[in-house]
Structure formats: C-alpha cells, structure tokens
C-alpha cells in the first residue's frame, strides 16, 4: 500500500489511487468521526482510513456501522454535537441511507460524504453510473464531481470549507467515479498541514451546537404554520453556497495553485463551434478524442462540470451560449423525463432557456455501468452535433451512444 510511505503533513508528490488521496485529505482535515459499511468502491477509502488510525497517523474514531442508514445517522448526530465528520457510500448502499440523507440538510448539518459512484441494482453491477449521487440533487445536498485523484483531494478540502461555513451549513457530497477514479493510480500533489490549516478553519457549530452548555431543541415538529419559512431558510443557504464556493476556490487557488475555475473547466473551447459537456472521469477519454478531432479540423471543445449543486446557471448560460451546438453527456438516465434524456441534459437545457442566443442542445447517454467511452462514441456525438448545425435544428435530442441495438 502506497499510503504507508506517504508522509502526511509534508508537501510532496506521491503516486496513489483516488481512495488513498481522499484518505490523506481526511487526515489533513483532522476529521474526528468517520463511519463505514462495506460496499465497493466506497469502502476502499475506509480501508485506508482504518490503516491510518491503526498506525497512529490520524486521531479519529471510526465506527463500523451495521448499515448505511446508521452510517449517516451516526455522523449526522456527531456533527451536530461539534465533530468534523466523514462518511459515504455507493450505489444501493447510498440508497439504503436515503432517509438520513434527506433529513441532514434541513437540520443544517455540514456532513461531508463521498458517493463512490456505482450503478444501483438491479441487476447488481459494480461499474460507475451517476444516478446514485443525483438522488440527493433536490434536497439540499451540495454535489460535485471530481475528475482525478488530485481533484478528489482538493474537493474534499473544498467541501469542508464550504459546508461548514455558517452561512451555508449544508452537507456536501463529492462524486468519485467507481474504479476510474477510486482505484486508478495517479501522481498526487499532497499539501502540507500548514497549507491546509490556512485554508480550512476549525469547525465551529456556534449556537447550533448540541451540548449541555447550549440547551437547544433541534428539529422540532412543525406543520403548515412554519414549514414553508423553514424550507426557505434552507434555500437561502443553498443560494449563498454559490458565492461561498467561488470565494473558497479563489483562496484555494492562492494557497495551492489549483481549482482556478470554481464551477466548471473548459478545454479547447476558445474557438469551438460545438462542445461536449460532462462530469467526472469521462473527461479523460473525451479530452483525448477532442484533441484527435481537432487535428482533423473539427472545432470541438469540452466543458467539465464540477459543481452541480450549487448550479452556476448564469455562468453556464454565458459559457454555452457562445457555441453553435452543445452535446451533454450523461452517465445517468432519467426514465420517462422530457425527451427521455439524462439528468444533466435537463439541467443544461433549463439553464439555456433564458440565454439570448441558444445553442442546439443534444444529449448522449453513455458509459453506463462503467462502460468505457471510446473514440467511436465521441465521433458519433460530434457527428450528431454537426448534423444539427447543418440542419439548423436538433433532429435527435437524445441518443444512447455505444449501445448494442436489439
């Protein structure tokens, strides 16, 4: 295991997997309480954490929960009483925790989690899909997706910073693509403890802390008399989170030299006619193929989304309305939805509705169950966008790319 050799707290570079990078980030963030329950790929992070604690490299308590529902309830309560916490899950494990996932944001509890993206059953499958994390899209969780082990480390630190900001106090989940990110080895720049401490203040729950010195009642019963106002305060936290992400990214860049663009990253878009949009590790294959297609004279670029909640609608609108065609890649599905497209497709189309100049937006469902995205797939997407531009209209809004026909 690479981690054994990692000098946590000293600035240096090391070859490690995404799960190890996350574990190092958690040690650097001085997390107090963590919970785990076995499910691939989430559990690999906890394997590393257990090792760090066992070897005295991290002072924290790890609870081996008896299920994901308990995993999330334990950290929720630990966090209310003042501890910095971490948990997470994958696929059906994430689904099993749905009740605590739902109740954490309205109580304004800054739990930080990862969703080790995995297809939800049935049929049982280990590979990556994004539907698990999207299940918490509408209930107050902040959600973001990392692209590399490095970014997973970075976004863990960002997540604590944003979630624990008292103006936000909302939970944050980092999506990490199962196996592509979690288990692939990369060179990771590990920051020093001093750098991390400069970026990340101590968690202070203030007057919302559950402690005998502060005898408050938390999450008491309401009805139609108050619920709407309480929902609005959560919404205000979600609205504020956008500016907080921006500010945090700025400071992160100053200290660590990364995360310059807070919400999304553009690749070869400057003179592009058409762009693909997606999140997570599919970027590796898409970028490589964009480079190839560029050599053939095709003016194509790529926009990689990081934060989906908060959703930077204005920035997305401004960016995407520059292009003639936009192709949204969804590693997910939204059965029965409008035009039968994927989740991010709907997000993008909705953001673009008020754009002065609207690009032709099409949707590509692919990479499901951890299927690789190949050159032929990207070529097909680009071909569909070119056809739209030629026709001046979107003929096929949604295409399942790289899918066997019957």
């Amino acid at each position, binding site marked *: 295991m690479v981690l054994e050799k990692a000098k946590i707290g000293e600035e240096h570079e090391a070859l490690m997997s995404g799960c190890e990078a996350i574990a190092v980030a958690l040690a650097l963030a001085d997390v*107090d*309480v963590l919970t785990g329950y076995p499910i691939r790929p989430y559990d690999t992070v906890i394997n590393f954490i257990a090792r760090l604690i066992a070897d005295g490299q991290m*002072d*924290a*308590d790890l*609870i081996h*929960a*008896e*299920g994901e*529902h*308990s995993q999330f*309830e*334990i*950290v*929720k*309560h*630990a*966090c*209310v*009483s*003042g*501890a910095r*916490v971490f948990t997470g899950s994958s696929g059906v494990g994430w689904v099993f925790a749905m*009740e*605590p996932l739902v*109740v954490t944001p309205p109580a304004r509890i800054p739990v930080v989690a990862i969703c080790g993206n995995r297809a939800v059953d049935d049929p049982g499958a280990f590979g990556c899909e994004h539907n698990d994390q999207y299940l918490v899209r509408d209930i107050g969780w902040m959600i973001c997706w990392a692209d590399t082990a490095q970014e997973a480390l970075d976004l863990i630190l960002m997540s604590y910073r944003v979630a624990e900001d008292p103006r936000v106090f909302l939970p944050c989940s980092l999506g990490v693509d199962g196996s592509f990110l979690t288990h692939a080895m990369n060179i990771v720049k590990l920051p020093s403890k001093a750098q991390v401490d400069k970026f990340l203040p*101590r968690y202070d729950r203030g007057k919302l802390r*559950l*402690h*005998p010195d*502060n*005898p*408050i*009642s*938390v*999450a*008491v*019963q*309401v009805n139609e*008399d*108050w619920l709407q106002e309480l929902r609005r305060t959560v919404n205000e936290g979600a609205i504020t989170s956008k500016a907080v992400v921006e500010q945090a990214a700025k400071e992160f860049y100053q200290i660590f030299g990364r995360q310059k663009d807070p919400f999304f990253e553009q690749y070869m878009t400057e003179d592009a006619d058409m762009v693909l949009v997606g999140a997570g590790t599919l970027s590796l294959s898409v970028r490589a193929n964009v480079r190839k297609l560029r050599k053939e004279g095709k003016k194509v670029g790529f926009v990689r989304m990081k934060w989906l909640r908060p959703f930077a609608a204005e920035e997305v609108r401004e960016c995407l309305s520059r292009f003639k065609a936009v192709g949204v890649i969804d590693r997910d599905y939204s059965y029965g939805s409008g035009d039968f497209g994927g989740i991010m497709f709907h997000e993008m189309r909705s953001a673009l509705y008020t754009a002065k100049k609207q690009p032709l937006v099409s949707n590509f469902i692919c990479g499901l169950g951890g299927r690789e995205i190949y050159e032929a797939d990207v070529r097909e997407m680009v071909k569909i966008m070119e056809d739209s531009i030629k026709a001046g209209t979107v003929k096929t809004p949604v295409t399942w790319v790289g899918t066997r026909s019957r």
Partner: protein
Amino acid sequence: MTMTMEFERIRGVKAAPLPEMYTSGHRTCQGCDSALNCRYVAKAAGPRSIVLGATGCMYVANTSYYSTPWAIPWMHTQLGATGSAVLGVAVSLKVQMRKGKIKNEPINVIGIGGDGGVADMGLSAVSATLTWPEYDSLIVMYDNESYANTGVQVSCQTPYGAHTTFSPVGTVKPIMHKRWKKNTAAMMAAGHPECRYVASACTAYPVDLMNKVRRALSISGPTFVAILCPCPKGWDFDPRYSHEMGEMACKSGMWANWEMEDGKLTFQTPTSGIIKGMVQRMPVADYLLRQGRFDHLRKEDFDHIQKQLDKIWGEWGIPAILPFKVAEGELA
C-alpha cells in the same frame, strides 16, 4: 476520555430532585405515561445531559416549534435511528474531549425511542450500539405497546389479541393480532456481552424507574432500559387510571420489573414478590378487561393468555425473561 456521571440513589418520591428538565410545552394526551416517562428520565439524569428523541408521540405530540418542553438539549432523530443517534453523540463527545476540542467532563447521552422505533424498525441500530463498550450511552425504550402516534397500529410490543387500527375486530376474524409480545429487554441483555446494564421498569413505579436510569448512566458503556408506559388512547381506558394500569400490568405478570448488572439479575417490586412466591399474580383478565382494546376477547381467549403467562412464569428457565434452560444431562 468521557467519564460517567456519579449519582445518589433516590430514596422515595419526595427525595427526587426538584428541578424539571422536561416541563410544560408538550401536547400529549391526558394521562400520557410516555410523557411522564420523559419527565422521570430527564429529572433523574439532570442538566448535564443530551437527549435524542426518535419519531413517535414523544416527538410529534411533544416538541412543537416554539414550545419545546425540554430544558436540556434535545434533538429529533429518525424513527429507526435511536441507536445511531446516541452512538453518534457519544463518539463525538469522546473524540472532542480526547483531542482537547471541548472540556473533558461527564455528559449523559440518552436516546428515547418508542417500541416501534426501538424494537421493530431501529432494532439493528440499537443492537449495534450496545456492542460498543467505549461509548457511554443510555437507550430508553418507552413501550406504549403500539405505534401510537400514527393512530395506534400493531407493533412487535403489542400484546396478543389487542385491537388496533391494523388489527380490527372482524366478523370473520375476531382476533387479527396473534403474535406474542417480543421480549426486547431480555433480548438486549442476552445478546450483548459488553452491555453491562439492562433493566425494565414501569411508570407506575417512578422511584424504581429513576434509580434505574441513574444506575444505567453511571455505568460505563452502552446501557438499555425498557419502560412500560400505559397509553390511555391506544389502550382505550380513562386517563385517570394510567397509574393503576401500570400497576396491574406488573401485578398480573404481563410486565416484569428487573435489572441486570454485570450479569447479575435482580427483580424489583412488585415482580420480586411474585418471583419469591410472596404474592400471587393477579388474574390477567382483571387487567385486560379494564382496557377497551381487549373488549372483544372471549373467555377462551383470556384463558389462552393466562395459560401462556403461567408458562412464562412457571416453566421458563428464567421466569418472565428467558424461555430456555439447559436440557437435562447436558451439563457435567
């Protein structure tokens, strides 16, 4: 490191501490012993305590926005999460104290959940919490023998034959609920070798109840107390008889008051008298007939329940607690 609290034993009702940690503000039914139980538990535990309360009557009918009855910190926890809630707070305090993030002092961590929340839905989390000796906590199950808050439905703690909204009296099926009540406290005591303290009590015996809460809080690790709380609405009796109903439950042998500390089992009044053969169990029909939920039972049904009880008290390896005993010839 967290430390457990030290308490004096309460000798008589009048010697109970005067400060109320659970006061006015709730809107439970008249004669609600589950609410009374909150008061006893909070009174016994005192101000340096944190209470985690599961969904149920003691949430919905108890802690309205802007009128909480709790003078100590209290937080709602999900119906099946009493175990996780106490574990979460206990581990949080312990780590923060160890790391010097908060003052190192004894703080009571108490979870209060209903029979539905603790013995049905939350059983797995409660059981898990009872396996962690390094985190001090107390889980209190207030047993009102139904899912009361949702309109009185059958739980695994509802007595045989009771009429509930999920087990109505039918023309073809006069008895729809035919399962015997789960022996939750005994299950906790038998199944968790590192849980040093398990007890059962009843609101009709408040001094015993409060002392059990104190004992549980003064013992290291996780502890569990089950408390029978008569429920005028769910059991269908006049609220003025709540206290009497609790007494009769114990005297008839439908409920037993006992305490298990470090493997040693003792019985308390009135159960102790029954066990020692000093008092006779009162006929169960006398108790059941006082409650509307058993109105439809016929003589043979009462006989069946009485027979079952006689077996539990007369034949079980540990009367009223554990049915099994070592078969003859198995031990050296």
